[in-house]
């Protein structure tokens, strides 16, 4: 029970009587208490609402694309409209869901609690980054409603600067504003992890979700400004008609260098938080400490650092020099190793554990399988001659969807289910959740595995009309997409249902270790009645001596 002086932040909070406990949800009511809150937990819920909305906007574009591709001819819509659909699907999913997703929702909610702090280092800055996100979203949606943008999410010049007549500038500025929002969030996380850890919580006692969120924040801090300046230069080029990236004076390949300098580390921004969630889920549901804690922690940092050296593998056929291509190919192979180490360590954690099959664990096991396929096809793409054949085909589309949908979204859903009782105090319906997990797994594989085959056979990417011989694979993919779409609607439904009718969850419904499970669900406004002191390693379940295999 939170006794002590009235909390300055919730002056109007009702004094806690005996049975009704004060938590961050019922501490105060009214839209003002939500829209002007500086409580990291409420800001996380605000992000959850806005990001889920954008996820379904992006998903709608995906459904439209798959409907069009069910038939070889471009018959459902004009080719121009189709170009806008896949562009907006890319922009909304990448900038509005995958990059902010896990850090802004789970990171915002959990990082302060997991390290025993009362809030993030800069609560006002945290609320400001939410408003910047909403402002960026409005800006981009206005760009879309005013006719959309058809340059592809990559904005390649000279198409985006010379040939495209769609509103590139509003959408580019929208993405730019999003960049500031994620920079401010990352800045908040880094300072919090450095400066506000609970007494006794040294670096090697931090949960692995904190390690991966910290690594992600580093990548965001060092990468996002470069896409910001690149989009500024594209916008300036369109406004003043200055040939910065357009021939004959400007060099389109220089744009690709600056764009991919950020956009490859961006895929690590998307996957690292999901890896952090998987580390938590695998240890929690096999009731065993992680196998090789130091290796998993340092592989997150290695991914963050090496991720910046490999962007050239997106440009093997773009006219890059032969020797630069060899350098980038070699570095791309080295960056795959830390991810492999993580997968092997998670698998080893299951060995001799007591593995429960609850929904979060289903998503974690699904992640292990799908991320392995996604990561290993990365090795295929790092080989230059194969990449020369398959780049800009559906092989690449399948590869990055296996990592983003098979990896990040499975991790995201696993994390949402795992921490739902902590965030809302209610349990999700186990039966429905398991069904949804299976449907998502089946739908996903049916959608994207045929695209590997179509890709290597030579079906180019971003085509509204394709050859007849690819139709069977595309119909399978479209069928899978409808299953996947339905699979994503289920959690949306039963999680909202659980808010009212879900079983009340106690402070620790899973019986697991971690600071966030030592406070009540949902946690009080200040997370802990008094700052906890950490005395041992994370994930310590058994009482006897740990054994070295």
């Amino acid at each position, binding site marked *: 029970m939170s006794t002590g002086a009235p909390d300055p932040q919730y002056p109007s909070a009702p004094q806690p009587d005996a049975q009704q406990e004060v938590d961050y949800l019922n501490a105060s009511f009214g839209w003002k208490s939500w829209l002007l809150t500086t409580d990291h937990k409420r800001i996380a819920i605000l992000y959850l609402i806005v990001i889920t909305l954008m996820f379904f906007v992006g998903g709608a574009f995906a459904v439209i694309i798959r409907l069009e591709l069910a038939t070889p001819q471009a018959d459902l819509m004009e080719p121009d409209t189709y170009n806008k659909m896949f562009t907006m699907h890319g922009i909304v999913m990448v900038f509005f869901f995958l990059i902010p997703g896990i850090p802004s929702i789970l990171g915002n909610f959990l990082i302060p609690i997991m390290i025993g702090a009362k809030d993030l280092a800069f609560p006002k800055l945290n609320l400001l980054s939410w408003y910047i996100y909403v402002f960026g979203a409005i800006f981009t949606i206005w760009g879309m409603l005013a006719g959309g943008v058809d340059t592809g999410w990559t904005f390649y010049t000279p198409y985006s600067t010379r040939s495209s007549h769609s509103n590139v500038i509003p959408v580019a500025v929208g993405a730019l504003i999003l960049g500031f929002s994620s920079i401010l969030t990352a800045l908040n996380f880094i300072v919090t992890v450095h400066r506000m850890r609970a007494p006794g919580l040294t670096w090697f006692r931090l949960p692995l979700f904190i390690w991966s969120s910290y690594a992600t924040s580093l990548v965001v801090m060092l990468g996002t*400004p470069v896409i910001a300046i690149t989009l500024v230069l594209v916008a*300036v080029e369109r406004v003043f008609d200055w040939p910065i990236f357009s021939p004959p004076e400007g060099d389109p390949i220089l744009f690709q260098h600056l764009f991919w300098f950020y956009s490859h580390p961006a895929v690590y921004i998307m996957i690292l938080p999901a890896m952090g969630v998987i580390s938590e889920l695998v240890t929690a549901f096999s009731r065993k400490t992680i196998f090789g804690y130091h290796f998993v922690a340092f592989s997150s940092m290695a991914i963050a650092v090496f991720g910046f050296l490999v962007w050239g593998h997106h440009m093997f056929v773009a006219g890059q020099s032969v020797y630069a291509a060899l350098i980038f190919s070699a570095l791309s192979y080295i960056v795959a190793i830390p991810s492999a180490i993580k997968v092997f360590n998670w698998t080893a954690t299951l060995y001799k554990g007591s593995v429960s099959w609850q929904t979060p664990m289903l998503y974690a096991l699904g992640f292990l399988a799908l991320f392995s396929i996604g990561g290993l096809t990365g090795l295929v793409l790092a080989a230059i001659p194969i990449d020369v054949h398959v780049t800009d085909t559906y092989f690449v589309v399948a590869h990055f969807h296996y990592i983003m949908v098979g990896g990040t979204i499975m991790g995201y859903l696993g994390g949402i289910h795992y921490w739902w009782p902590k965030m809302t105090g209610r349990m999700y319906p186990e039966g429905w959740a398991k069904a949804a997990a299976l449907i998502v797994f089946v739908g996903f594989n049916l959608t994207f595995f045929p695209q590997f085959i179509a890709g290597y056979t030579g079906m180019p990417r971003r085509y509204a009309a394709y050859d007849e011989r690819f139709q069977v694979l595309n119909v399978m993919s479209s069928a899978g997409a409808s299953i996947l779409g339905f699979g994503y609607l289920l959690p949306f439904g039963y999680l909202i249902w659980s808010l009212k009718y879900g079983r009340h969850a106690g402070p620790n419904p899973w019986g697991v270790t971690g600071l966030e499970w030592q406070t009540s669900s949902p946690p009080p406004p200040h997370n802990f009645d008094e700052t906890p002191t950490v005395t041992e390693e994370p994930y310590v379940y058994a009482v006897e001596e740990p054994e070295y295999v």
Partner: protein
Amino acid sequence: MSEHAGPLAHHFEDIEQQKDAAALGMWAFLATEVLFFGGALTAYSIYRGLYTKGFAVGSSFQIVPLGAINTAVLLTSSLTMALAVHAAAVGNRAALVRNLALTLLLGAAFLGIKVYEYHHDYVEGLVPGAWFHPTEEVRDRIRPFEQQHGTVDFRQVELYFIFYFVLTGLHALHMIIGMGVLTIQLVLVRRGWFGPEYPTPIELTGLYWHFVDIVWIFLFPLLYLLRHAGGGH
């Protein structure tokens, strides 16, 4: 930038932790700014490497003495900013107010000189894009250069001026933001904020201002001083 009610925010253990957090936060933000300008500087360095002749001529059109004076102005404003931070730390309010005002004044002087330079470029027809038609007098000025290095392709010079305006424009924008914050803090100092127990906001503005000064320390030689095309092509 800081709470007026008691300096210690509710979620910090002690004032020490809050100051460290603020300093680390500002340094991290400056790291992103380094990469923000870094992206434009990478593009500039690539183009300078590809079009050395055109960029050398472009730099030769700059008024180097004016640039040098501008650099001195900005370095002085950096000094007064450092003195302001020092004054805030020891609680000497008069010195704090004087130095903040001086910094603001010098910042304004810097922007004034920049506006004059922009106007000078406009008059000479060196503003890229629709306004780019260099006057005869400008073409004559580079005759000796062309004697030694061969003809200059004015499209490369235009590309130089594109980056000149983008880089100095971004820098000026950051100056304006900095001066806005300085003005707010100057008003708050006169109302008695930022005593010696919590001078952090002044320090943060100081860090930001010194960063903007460092950007100019690199921009000045890159844009004004590299006027030689050397023996290369």
